[in-house]
């Protein structure tokens, strides 16, 4: 049954406080003595006034209205919603990591620099690249960083006519958007009937104006681009470079490396593959690895090791410049480093093996009940189509909402765009067989309901704190903030 939760503003009572500040131990300044009258704030910000317990109960109630990985299964395709280890959270809060300043002299932050240096090396080894920058704050920023380096590379060679970035029709939305923001024109290459990049179409699209091809491998359908070597050759022969979108790197740790596939630039999402929490939308972290040809263009600084210890090197004469304040999302780097040190080479390899086994198991078990566009073998994720259920009047959106009644976060839906009524399912390696079996049972029940009693699905969800929300009105008559009165 639906019930509203009051806003914190509605709980506010003048005079209540949840803070504790010391008395001033220095002389009080007269505000109008040190600031011109017209610079002084006259109407205070209407921040809530509540007690500490009010605050805690408010957020405890809000947290009960939120589903995270710790609450239950979260097979959101391409997002790699795996377990977020607790030790990572503890370590990132050590004062030696949490309470240090980015402008402290290098000799006073050697531990932080060592961590960054080793993480750069680890990520280079994992991806098969030569050097890594840890600056980008998220995957999309990594994409933009990589594309800006590619732009600078072409320009440094006097090759100024390359203004096109090729992206597959199955690509993440950030790929074409990053291309635009980096000043390129995004052009699409079609997928073939196998769900892979059409080499024939690529040959048509590629040319002297090609700056780069952006590719996710395995792609967003969960399929490994088997012709990647040929694709790389085509692009390279045309003078373009290859960009690897690391959103799906969880499938290939220790199994295959983008650097060996012919990619020149790679970004990784530490919040996907390397267990840093998604935080309700962020912060993420999107390190970028490059081959030697692009090293001079890296955003400075990069951490290096010298006789006197670790230091920030700004010696990148053709650097594209800074992409992010300070040294990237350092707190996320600490967590990812902790995870990599927990797993080691054998652990990371098993991560991908188990992730792939889980995905194939789910796909196989669900095949009798749903349309499976590419039933052969998948990597860490796969797609289903709800077309069969649509004929019964049940849409993929309805089935997603029905899953909520089982305490399961739905898969990514309606993406990639090339699959009708798409459900993109990524179980990850941290889920047990029992959890997978429960998900399978729920999906089978939903498939049955679609035939026998579709209204149960159409009217779902039934057990959540609110029912379906009116998104149309929200967009047409936006209310995006609280107002007093």
């Amino acid at each position, binding site marked *: 049954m*639906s019930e509203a939760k009051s806003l914190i503003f509605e709980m506010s009572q003048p005079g209540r406080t949840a803070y504790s500040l010391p008395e001033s131990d220095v002389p009080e300044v007269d505000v109008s003595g040190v600031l011109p009258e017209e610079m002084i704030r006259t109407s205070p910000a209407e921040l809530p006034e509540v007690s500490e317990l009010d605050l805690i109960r408010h957020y405890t109630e809000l947290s009960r209205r939120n589903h995270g990985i710790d609450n239950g299964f979260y097979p959101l395709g391409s997002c790699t919603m795996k377990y977020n280890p607790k030790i990572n959270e503890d370590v990132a809060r050590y004062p030696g990591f949490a309470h240090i300043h980015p402008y402290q002299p290098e000799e006073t932050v050697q531990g932080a620099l060592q961590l960054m240096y080793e993480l750069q090396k680890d990520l280079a080894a994992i991806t098969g690249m030569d050097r890594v920058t840890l600056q980008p704050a998220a995957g999309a920023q990594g994409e933009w960083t990589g594309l800006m380096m590619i732009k600078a590379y072409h320009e440094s060679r006097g090759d100024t006519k390359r203004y096109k970035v090729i992206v597959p029709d199955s690509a993440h939305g950030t790929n074409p958007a990053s291309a635009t923001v980096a000043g390129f024109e995004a052009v699409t290459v079609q997928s073939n009937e196998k769900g892979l990049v059409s080499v024939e179409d690529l040959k048509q699209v590629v040319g002297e104006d090609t700056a780069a091809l952006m590719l996710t491998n395995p792609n967003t359908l969960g399929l490994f681009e088997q012709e990647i070597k040929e694709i790389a050759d085509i692009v390279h022969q045309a003078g373009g470079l290859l960009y690897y979108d690391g959103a799906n790197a969880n499938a290939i740790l220790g199994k295959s490396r983008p650097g060996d596939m012919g990619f020149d630039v790679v970004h990784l999402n530490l919040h996907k593959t390397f267990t840093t929490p*998604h935080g309700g939308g962020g912060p993420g972290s999107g390190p970028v690895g490059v081959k030697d040809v692009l090293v001079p263009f890296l955003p400075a600084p990069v951490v290096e090791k010298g006789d006197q210890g670790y230091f920030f090197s700004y010696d990148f004469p053709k650097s594209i410049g800074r992409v992010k304040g*300070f040294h990237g999302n350092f707190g996320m780097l600490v967590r990812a480093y902790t995870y990599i040190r927990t797993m080691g080479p054998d652990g990371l390899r098993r991560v991908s093996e188990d992730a792939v086994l889980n995905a194939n198991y789910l796909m196989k078990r669900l095949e009798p009940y749903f349309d499976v566009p590419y039933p052969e073998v998948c990597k860490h994720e796969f797609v289903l189509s709800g077309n069969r259920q649509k004929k019964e009047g049940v849409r993929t959106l309805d089935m997603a*909402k029905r899953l909520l009644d089982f305490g399961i976060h739905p898969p990514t839906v309606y993406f990639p765009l090339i699959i009708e009524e798409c459900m993109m399912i990524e179980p990850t390696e941290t889920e047990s067989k029992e959890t997978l079996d429960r998900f399978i049972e729920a999906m089978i029940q939903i498939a049955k309901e679609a035939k026998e009693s579709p209204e149960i699905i159409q009217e779902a969800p039934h057990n959540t704190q609110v029912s379906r929300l009116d998104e149309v009105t929200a967009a047409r008559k936006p209310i995006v903030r609280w107002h007093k009165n």
Partner: protein
Amino acid sequence: MNFRYLPMTESDRREMLQVLGRDSVDQLFEDIPENLRFKGRLNIPEGMSEPVLTRHMKRLAGKNASFDQYTSFLGAGAYEHYIPSVVNHVISRSEFYTAYTPYQPEISQGELQAIFEFQSMICELTGMEVANSSMYDGVTALAEAAGVASAVSRKKKILVSRTVHPEARFILNTQAKGLGLDVQEIPCRDGVTDIDALKAASDADTAAVIVQSPNFLGNVEDLKQIEPIAHTHKGLLIVSANPISLGVLKPPGEYGADIVVGDAQPMGIPVQFGGPHCGFFAVTKKLMRKVPGRIVGQTQDENGVRGFVLTLQAREQHIRREKATSNICSNQALNALATSVWMIALGKKGIQELAKLNLNKAHYAKERLSRISGVQPLFNHPFFNEFALQLNRPVSQVNRKLFDRGIIGGYGLEQDYPEWKHSMLIAVTDMRTKEEIDELARVLEGLV
């Protein structure tokens, strides 16, 4: 070695492979061409058990000089302030931190409402009508604001004051190369934006004027004079602000700013070597549909009950793809949550009291340190909690000595502003005591 995050047993594996009609997991990787299969072991260190790892991480952390051991006067865009205990407790609730972007509103009302409240409080603080759910940090938010101004005005020229944070200007320049913006720097005079130079540079081609207040040098800019210069030629006024200063300073919205950006880090987010922090992005109602990133809106469910959803998504990359004006997807939601908790804990009264405390301490420190012979204030402008001093020897040299006495000194301005040799930017927040300020003065007296 066992792996505590991997639950699959040998018998699970056998059963699952049997369902698949396969003999081994390797067969599931046969779609990778033979010559692309990685044969060796990754060249990274071996895995560690939890106790060994804990010791290793403590040792690494121990090689850093933290604020817990040293008294810091370093600011320059990242500040140590009071963080109530409740902040960490709330953001440690894993219902929040292990969730992703709230795509399924029926099971994400907690996060959505928390963001709606964040947006509302950022609007209150900045004096704006619309705020998004967060950006990577303040300096990238500033570069994104320039992109919005260019898209809205269909003009390319961006005037940015040289008193804006140097890293923000670096990033703006990187961004400009992608968007084809023409960025021009406006010089500073006496530590604030040179109004005459700004007037002279501003013309019909100007998409935006960007200033920071209090600026990188600590000085409060004269927004009343700057606003008409930006608007005369139908450009936008973009102001980057320190949010805590808005407890006492008139908010940019009241001066007519079109976009207000900044970093919420001072409000409940540890400095943590520079990130993750949390950019905020607030605009006028008119610009609502041009804002980058996620926005949460209020609506109703089928039973008429109030609820919240991600809204105005037609702006975003996953819908617009190559037509999007920003590529941001992940943001800094968990830090926005930390900031929300902080703003609520401080509340209407606390933010004013805290801002006043900063004002008191910084003014005391400036007066006290300026009495030292060999030390002079560099500027004589209204300021908030940061100010610049001119010393009679190199800042790095002074800082080394200070460090030996347990003090992390200020920021050397010379690296970004060569004209100010031996100049140090000093931040004095609510965390510094009179005793610590006096100690800094005593140590400095012996050095200069």
